């Protein structure tokens, strides 16, 4: 069944991306661990961690593309799901510290001792077990998304309104997690992690392992996304995106389709967050900031909305640029990011992947004996012509 879905959705670019991800999952750790540091092909550990971080961002972008690109739901709150997954992982990592914390309490994390708490709050139970923590990393964002979506989609909150209340959701969570009383470390969040599954979180091998896990998770996420979008369900989603009322009149329960893909997307984002936290070593309420969610949207837009491969490319490229700018020209990063937002929305509505596709098509047309005059269209005109296609939204 799945295979049939995949055969429909696995186009050239997607196969290449999957192959790249699997190859990276194997090759990068090998190049990092097996080769001596002097070797020209050696990959330094900091680069492994950095790329691992990009890959978790890419998974977040993929999750966002699933709802925005295929279902027309522009979520400005996906960072909330990402951060919830991250907090679940962070709670597991906190429990692993044990007596090695500053206060040496075998059960309570440092910040609870500091706040003079006597016992572990009930919602921290079970987080010493890795499988449970991973379950929650998926279930917590999934449940939040399910409840939120259940209400929102049933009431037919759409478009701009939905975007704004998703933003309100992540903002409310941001404020909530800032509170010390919540029992998630308040302002400082969770940090000072020691080890994961018994491996030292700082060691090269663990970091390489986390990178491989991120690459494989992203590959897995891509397979799931392809399976969903290539199925009949995926076609309905696209119909919802392009003409929601019409789809409803045709007899489809639009809200069910939306709710399904919304929840899957949130869980994917939660997984990304869970992989992100051990690699950066901290999770704090800042991850809930609405600005983070909006930034994730631009990764999708840069790569190409509704292409699945595009968001992965976009997330890695934009974050690579961010790392480079903040190191070399910190003053200009916001100018560059702001300019990117404007440029991409105005001139690249289909993103990098869209640009590449149209370039390929034009090459083909030029090679074959073509209808005259077609290829003289400039990219600007094509961009200008596109809004009319989407006006139906």
């Amino acid at each position, binding site marked *: 069944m799945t295979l049939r879905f995949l055969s429909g959705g696995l186009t050239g670019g997607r196969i290449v991306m999957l192959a790249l991800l699997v190859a990276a999952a194997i090759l990068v750790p090998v190049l990092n661990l097996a080769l001596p540091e002097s070797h020209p092909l050696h990959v330094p550990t900091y680069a492994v961690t950095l790329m691992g971080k990009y890959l978790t961002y890419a998974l977040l972008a993929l999750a966002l593309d699933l709802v925005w690109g295929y279902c027309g739901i522009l979520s400005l709150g996906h960072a909330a799901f990402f951060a919830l997954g991250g907090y679940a992982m962070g709670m597991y990592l906190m429990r692993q510290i044990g007596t090695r914390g500053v206060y040496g309490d075998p059960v309570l994390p440092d910040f609870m001792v500091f706040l003079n708490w006597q016992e572990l709050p009930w919602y921290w139970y079970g987080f010493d077990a890795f499988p449970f923590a991973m379950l929650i990393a998926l279930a917590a964002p999934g449940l939040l998304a399910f409840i939120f979506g259940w*209400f929102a989609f049933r009431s037919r909150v759409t478009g701009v309104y939905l975007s704004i209340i998703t933003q309100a959701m992540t903002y409310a969570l941001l404020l909530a997690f800032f509170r010390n009383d919540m029992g998630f470390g308040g302002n400082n969040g969770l940090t000072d992690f020691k080890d994961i599954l018994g491996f030292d979180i700082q060691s090269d091998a663990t970091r390489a392992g986390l990178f491989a896990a991120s690459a494989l998770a992203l590959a897995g996420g891509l397979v799931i996304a392809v399976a969903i979008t290539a199925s009949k369900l995926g076609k309905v989603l696209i119909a919802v995106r392009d003409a929601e009322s019409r789809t409803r009149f045709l007899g489809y329960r639009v809200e069910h389709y939306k709710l399904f893909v919304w929840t899957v997307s949130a869980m994917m984002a939660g997984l990304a967050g869970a992989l992100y936290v051990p690699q950066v070593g901290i999770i704090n309420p800042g991850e809930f900031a609405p600005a983070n969610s909006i930034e994730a949207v631009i990764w999708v837009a840069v790569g190409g909305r509704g292409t699945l491969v595009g968001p992965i490319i976009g997330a890695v490229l934009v974050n690579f640029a961010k790392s480079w700018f903040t190191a070399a020209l910190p003053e200009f990063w916001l100018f560059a990011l702001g300019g990117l937002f404007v440029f991409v929305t105005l001139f690249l509505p289909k993103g990098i992947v869209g640009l590449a596709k149209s370039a390929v098509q034009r090459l083909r047309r030029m090679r074959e004996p073509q209808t005259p005059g077609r290829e003289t269209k400039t990219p600007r005109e094509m961009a200008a012509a596109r809004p009319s296609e989407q*006006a139906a939204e």
Partner: protein
Amino acid sequence: MLALTLLCAVFAGTVQAQSADDDLRARLNALASGGFDETQRQIDAIAATGDPRAAPALEALSEGDLYFRQSDTAVFIVRKEGSGYRLQDPLTLEDTGTAGRREVKKIRVNNRLRRAIRTALGTLTLRAPDPAARIEAADAIFKAQDVDSIEPLDAALAAETDTDVARHMREARAAAVLASDRPTQDKLEAIATIAARGDRDARSLLTGISNGPDTALHEAANAAIAKVERVQGLWDTARNIWFGLSLGSVLLLAAIGLAITFGVMGVINMAHGEMVMLGAYTTFVVQSLFRTAAPEYFDYSLIVALPAAFLVAGLVGIAIERGIIRFLHDRPLETLLATWGVSLILQQSVRTIFGPTNQEVGNPSFMSGAFEIGQLTITYNRLWIVVFALVVFTVLLVAMKATRFGLYVRAVTQNRRMSASMGIRTPLVDALTFGLGSGIAGIAGVALSQIDNVSPNLGQSYIIDSFMVVVFGGVGNLWGTLLGAFTLGIANKFLEPVAGAVLAKILVLVFIILFIQKRPRGLFALKGRAVDA
């Protein structure tokens, strides 16, 4: 004849003052002689004169700065200067030269004397010429429940002409009576007086009494506490409403421009907060110009800043509309991204030009200070902002309902194509509407610069709230924005005492999310075909 009488009166007055002067000076000088007991007698005598001019000398005595000259036992307030002392006349406070270390001697005090001095000072200040000082003195006695002050208070009350001051004194006297061993009847009267005061201090005072042994007092105190609590409850409600109105007016100012751009044009302008910020920075620049060029007219700087901020933000808004937004009609979600980009660029530009730190924006004199209505303190800047928000709202409402431009804007809102067919230049209307919305945001920035930090992040803190207000109130309806802003503001302030500031905000956000489920188009939804656009 009349002149002669006047002259006589003046002369007599001077003589009288002269003799009082001498009398007081003699008493002050007497402080220098004798032991602690003698000194205390003198302090009481000075207090009995009720002459406020003795206060500085007594204060100096309490702090060990009152010395006497060995040669003639004249008393001075001294200040150490090098190896010697600088002398100050204890009454006139005039400089009377210096003295060597051995020429003067400190008048020693102990703790008992310090207490006596405090009481004496309280009595003296009860007669101070400044009513505010008298009220302060009475309140100090009220807090201390100073039994010894009852008699001085009685004396001061007899002489008091200001009813407000007299009320404070009666309350102070009642508090002192409660602490004294006076008969129950007096104390019952005192309880009634304090209950009438009805504030927090009165309540804590009465709570102390209600635990006492006397049952009659007990009941009276409990009844009084209940009364005070009722009054308190009313004032708390009034306070919450006022704070809510104040917060609501801030929200209204921040959101009203958005109500135009978002509501009328359907454009999600994420750079709206930055328009507010631009307005605030314009205020800063205008004020800097005033400071250097014409500091004496500083109070007028805001009046200049208003049109300047409107122009700056409005022009930037028009530039954004012409440069970006007009290409993105029919793609509302993507204008969101593009304008977010613009907001990042604007923030960073301001950060590059003015630096990342907060800028100092001054309050003109008419906006500083506060006044009190009962137990409610109202600061002038908050009051002006409420007034200003309502004025801006009214002007905008009139502009939309009663002008030709407003008519065009409403026509374009309701049906763009039809308006264009009727000869309305929709691109021009779009640009001007966006400019108007942005300009209003700039004006809001002028007002908000008075109560908030002017930093590059100023706009960020308002953008989410503004969207909440507009979405809650209903897009495209100014009344909805007004109602939404004040509802959210007051709801927030009523939740705050119960839940705490952060939780209150979270609850309001959750409420809005739920409210949108019930009414996906806000309180006042546009009817008709425009809804599906």
